[in-house]
């Protein structure tokens, strides 16, 4: 069985990656638990959204929109469940579903292996994710939420920087062909 294969569209060759068994589940669970624990000891780490970074990474790597959006949904719903009763189930779920779909759709069309491309994509996805959360909060939950502020830009840049480094580490979980 091939561990990686190529999508061919015209002249472009996009490699689709597979991972060691359990890697996706382990990484997603670790990200969720770290996200819940880290701010207790390092409050400033609250700026990070590791579950989002994991969603983006596996979306870009697997390059299958269906599995990407389903993985995003599962991670998002788990994050909702661990965020306390004031966050309704589906809040992060919808945001990460959209990101999972977009990441895997874009991953199927572009080469997203270069760190600069990854930085730009993570930055963009972070902003889009926050946009979806704001839409859900304002339109569906009727709660006030700012659209855009400096904190969002800083958070997007920090997450993009961390994500670029993290992705290099996660690349090691890929099965070699």
């Amino acid at each position, binding site marked *: 069985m091939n561990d990686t294969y190529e999508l061919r569209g015209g002249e472009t060759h996009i490699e689709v990656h597979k991972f060691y068994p359990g890697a996706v589940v382990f990484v997603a669970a670790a990200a*969720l*638990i770290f*996200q*819940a*624990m880290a*701010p*207790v*000891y390092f*409050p400033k780490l*609250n*700026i990070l*959204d590791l*579950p989002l970074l994991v969603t983006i990474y596996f979306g870009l790597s697997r390059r*299958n*929109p*269906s599995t990407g*959006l*389903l993985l995003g*949904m599962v991670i998002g*719903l*788990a*994050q*909702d*469940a*661990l*965020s*306390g*009763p*004031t*966050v*309704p*189930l*589906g*809040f*992060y*779920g*919808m945001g990460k*579903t*959209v990101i999972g*779909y977009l990441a895997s*759709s874009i991953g199927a069309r572009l080469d997203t292996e270069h760190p600069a491309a990854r930085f730009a994509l993570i930055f963009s996805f972070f902003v889009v994710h926050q946009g979806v*959360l704001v839409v*859900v*909060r304002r339109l*569906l*939950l009727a*709660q006030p939420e700012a659209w855009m502020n400096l904190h969002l830009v800083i958070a997007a840049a920090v997450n993009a920087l961390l994500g670029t480094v993290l992705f290099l580490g996660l690349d090691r979980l890929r099965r070699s062909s």
Partner: protein
Amino acid sequence: MVAIPSKHKSLTLLAGVLLAQLLLLAVQIKRDSRGRLIRVWAISAAYPFERSGAWGFGKVRGVWTHYFALQTTERENEALRVENDALKLTISQLQSRAAEADRLAGILGFKQSHTKVPMVGGRVIAASAGTASRTIEIDRGERDGIRRNMAVITPDGAVGKVIEVYGDTSQVLLLTDKDGGAGAMLVDTRTQGPVGGTGEPLMLMKYVATEENVAVGEKIVTSGMDKIFPRDIPIGTVVEVKPGNPFKQIRVQPAARLDRLETVIVLLTQEPVEFKSENTQTGAANAAPGSQSSAPAAAEKP
């Protein structure tokens, strides 16, 4: 039956998944249901990792911190370093435990000075898994006598209230959460008004009329009107006052360090608790910080 083109299948799936979650949201809002079953599963699955993680992190941090503290001593006593290495390691471990004991002594001292108030101490094992809420999870639950809407405090002041209780853990909504808050009053003027969170480190005191005199630095305590917090628990200090119409805009710095909570106290009563900061330093070594006072709450009434 209409066949969906294969290239649109993922788009159809996206729409279906989003619609399903939209309905899930609508059901929660309409029925005020919070998906407890899914949350219980998630919390139960994460609890062992969070608890062991909290324990492990505490150990590592203690040894790490005191290792560096001892490095200075090591340089000054270079000649004795080799033969003292083993001893230093022991000291490091003891200092780590002492630091932990100091922190718990504050909690214990508070408990001992309020022995007639039923309360239970808990360790913070996790926080909210996102920035949309400000909640913490503690390692005390239904089996420890905790129920929803009980007040959570530290010796410094009010922290929040219990919003969800599981077998061994509870989730606490911090005062700084957008949905958090407490009935409050200004200490000097006894002017009342709710203090609520904004999702940011500072809180807002609402509904204080423009003609009221409010000074920066004035203390704010609980009023007891919310039927959750007993009266006179410190909430915070006024750090900014802006005129408004018809109400002032008052920003409040929380009295408790809500961004660095490691241990908290859950009050198992709504009876008044008198805060005596000078008493919080005392404490007997034989009382366990997590133990529960059993004296009747009514005895604390003035």
